[in-house]
């Protein structure tokens, strides 16, 4: 939606979506969030709200890829490295119809034309490093751009080999895609490259809908008051995310839970090992978020649908949602 940033905590309902985004903020290796659902359900609001809630990052002042230190700054950046300054967590919008040049970066055409010099002009992937790359209507994006994005998101590095340039730079970002399945589906090969996926619906509960209106209206009439009111909640989420990042490596994963993960994926016939890994990572992030020291079945149950539902080898025309199939399998395997 529009206007000033809507506080993440003020989003009514949509718990799955909020949890999925928090988990990727805790564990960026989770590999991106796909949010599919109706219009006006707060998809982009949540992305922007989450980025505003995260602490600012420290980055070299004149670095186009937000490097954390002068050593990490890529060697093609000209001029001496600046001082470390803090800037908000980047959220980069990737518009539909964007050209490949603009995404990966390309020859700097201004300098080529004016001075005849060969220089690299960084693209959106550079700007999104250490932050979020948000694609609204990912299902309508051209296929070759989606391929490229998923490749880079996986490897964490952008490699440009074109027009006589050979450039590489870090591109580690959380990919957030959203879309409305009624307007076209995403290729199944691409679905499972996203770490977690959630489905959002317009709330059917009338009280919930009215609460959405009330908060949105409060934001528009009194932005300062609204922000002040929700800042406390946002700060609590921020602290919980930061604490969870600290704890993440210490969460213990007992043998039995690993077995559960594998059995669950086997029961669902999820292809490849990506399902198990994501399930484990998501559950671990959830345990860290809740301050639990050991992984258990409770966390698996909570994240199973978002980690697995988009990985099932599904009949594209199957209407009984795959989330329901995951639910059944969870009930059987984790009985």
């Amino acid at each position, binding site marked *: *939606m*529009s*206007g000033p940033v809507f506080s993440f905590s003020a989003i009514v309902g949509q718990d799955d979506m909020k949890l999925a985004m928090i988990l990727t903020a805790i564990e960026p290796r989770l590999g991106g969030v796909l949010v599919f659902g*109706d*219009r*006006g359900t707060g998809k*982009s609001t949540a992305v922007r709200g989450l980025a505003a809630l995260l602490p600012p990052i420290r980055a070299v002042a004149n670095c186009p890829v937000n490097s954390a230190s002068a050593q990490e700054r890529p060697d093609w950046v000209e001029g001496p490295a600046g001082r470390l300054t803090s800037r908000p967590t980047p959220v980069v*919008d990737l*518009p*539909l*119809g*964007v*050209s*490949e*040049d603009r995404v990966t970066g*390309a*020859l700097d*055409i*201004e300098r*080529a*034309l*004016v*001075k*005849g010099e*060969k220089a690299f002009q960084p693209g959106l992937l550079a700007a999104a490093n250490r932050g979020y790359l948000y694609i*609204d*209507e990912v299902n*309508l994006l*051209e296929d*070759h751009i989606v391929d490229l994005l998923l490749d880079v998101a996986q490897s964490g590095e952008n490699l440009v080999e*074109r*027009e*006589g340039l050979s450039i590489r730079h870090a591109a580690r970002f959380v990919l957030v895609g959203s879309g*409305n*399945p*009624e*307007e*076209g*589906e995403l*290729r199944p090969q691409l679905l499972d490259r996203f770490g977690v996926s959630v489905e959002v*619906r*317009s709330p*059917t509960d*009338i009280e919930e*809908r*009215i609460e*959405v*209106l*009330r908060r*949105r*209206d409060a934001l*528009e*009439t009194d932005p300062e008051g609204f922000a002040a009111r929700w800042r406390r909640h946002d700060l609590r989420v921020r602290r919980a995310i930061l604490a969870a990042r600290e704890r993440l490596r210490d969460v213990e994963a007992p043998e039995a839970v690993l077995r559960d993960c594998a059995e669950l994926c086997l029961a669902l016939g999820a292809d490849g090992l990506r399902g198990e890994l994501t399930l484990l990572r998501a559950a671990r992030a959830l345990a860290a978020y809740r301050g639990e020291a050991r992984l258990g079945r409770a966390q698996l149950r909570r994240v199973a649908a978002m980690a697995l539902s988009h990985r099932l080898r599904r*009949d*594209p*025309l199957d*209407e009984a949602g795959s989330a329901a199939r995951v639910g059944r399998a969870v009930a059987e395997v984790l009985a």
Partner: protein
Amino acid sequence: MSEGWADAALALRLLALDPAGLGGLHLRARAGPVRQAFEDALAIVPLPLRRLHPGMGADALDGGLDVAATLAERRPVRRDGCLAAPALLLLPMAERAAPLLASRLARALDTRRGAALILLDEGAEDETAQSGLVDRLAFTIDLHAVRWQDVAPVAAVPDPPTAEPAMPPEACRAMGLAAATFGIASPRGPLFALRAARAHALLHGRAEVRDEDLAVAARLVLAPRATLRPVSETPPSEPEARPEQGPERSADTDGTALPDRLVAAIRAALPPGALPQADRHAAPGKGASSGSGARMPGQRRGRPLPARAGRAGDGRIDLFATLTAAAPWQALRRRGMAPDDRVLIRPEDLRQRRHEDRADRLLVFVVDASGSAAVARLAEAKGAVVSLLAEAYAHRDQVALVSFRGAGAELLLPPTRALVRAKRQLAALPGGGGTPLASGLRAALEVAAAGRRRGMDPTLVLLTDGRANVGLDGTGGRGAAMADAEAMARQARDAAPAGLVIDTAPRATPETERLAGLMGARRLALPRARADAIGAAIAASRAG
């Protein structure tokens, strides 16, 4: 002065008071003096007017390097895009806007850089502007029925005061309930209605929003978004009769009456019979989301291919490739010339940009649901279509679904890639009645022609037993009906040359043989029409 023009003028005045908050206006009207009068009235909006056009690219919108000026002046010259400064953007022929443009405009509205948008939509019924964009504009105004003599000048608006008018506490609830009653899923509807109510209060110089402001806003903003008509009709005498109840009924009226009044105000603005009754669709969200399928599928631009040498004027010049080609020669060409920092480009360096243009395939299924294609056969035909749909999914084809029975044909699904919807429509398809084969073909040809206009490559797949007995005019009679059907089949040959006729009769009929011949299509009997066979037949007919 007619209702239509009065509403249009009122919406425009509200927009003039709060252009950024209300987002803009979706105007459905044909070009003509009425629309021109409205366009002239846009001057009351306190923003500079900028005209866009539907084919605009990213450069024009966001600005970029002005190549000609840069080369001439030998320093980078930037050009500002249309979205750089706050403006009232006017998009004519909005129904033709490419998805790219729509999404850029939607983003400009979302970030609220002070822009407001007027969509001039000349689309006929099946074509309309991108629903995602329309959703972000407060008003939809239809001027089709407004006559020239109804047009009156639009009065200017007062300067808005800095303080926003106060909203009565129950307004949010009332507006939310009213939106839910009419099956409006997107929260933007009621939100815009609340903002419009504020603007309406401002227009009348009030410091607080009254019920009448809310009622007017609900009518203007929510009525065009309604997807359902609530079942329980309240007595018609109550609502419209008292819009002047303002002074004594303000913020302290009881909370139950207001939602009812809003509902009544919206209902009064709906044309009778235009919407399904609420009881036919259980969930309010369902009805609304099905409206979003009207997305216009732009032709995909395809993968860039390697650039090729060529002359200026033949196509788009690939600057990068051109510069790369020129680069190695720079030192050599500069010899004997004055020292200069310009790049020396010769005609032989020019490279052209090429794209692999690939048209989307469009499969138009024409399903005979008549009584003669008996119920069991219909189920089999549905089965065949479903397996074809799975095939279409794998190829990323678009599908459309037309069925015919009784007196005429019905477009069940406009071209879409959302196959779950196709399957849902198909499952709900009832059978029985006469066989208006010609009508079915005509409807399918319209879909195919519309698809072709949008750059798609249509194929007809006709499932029938060929026993037409209802003509184009909806009357019975086998002879005339067959003649009509054959005439349409002949047209199909030109409109969608590659086609397939699947004979659903228990025994293959000569009629389908004849139809297939006229259509230039292949024919397949249903017992053998398994998905793989049909797929192969379609592939073969396209190749041939």
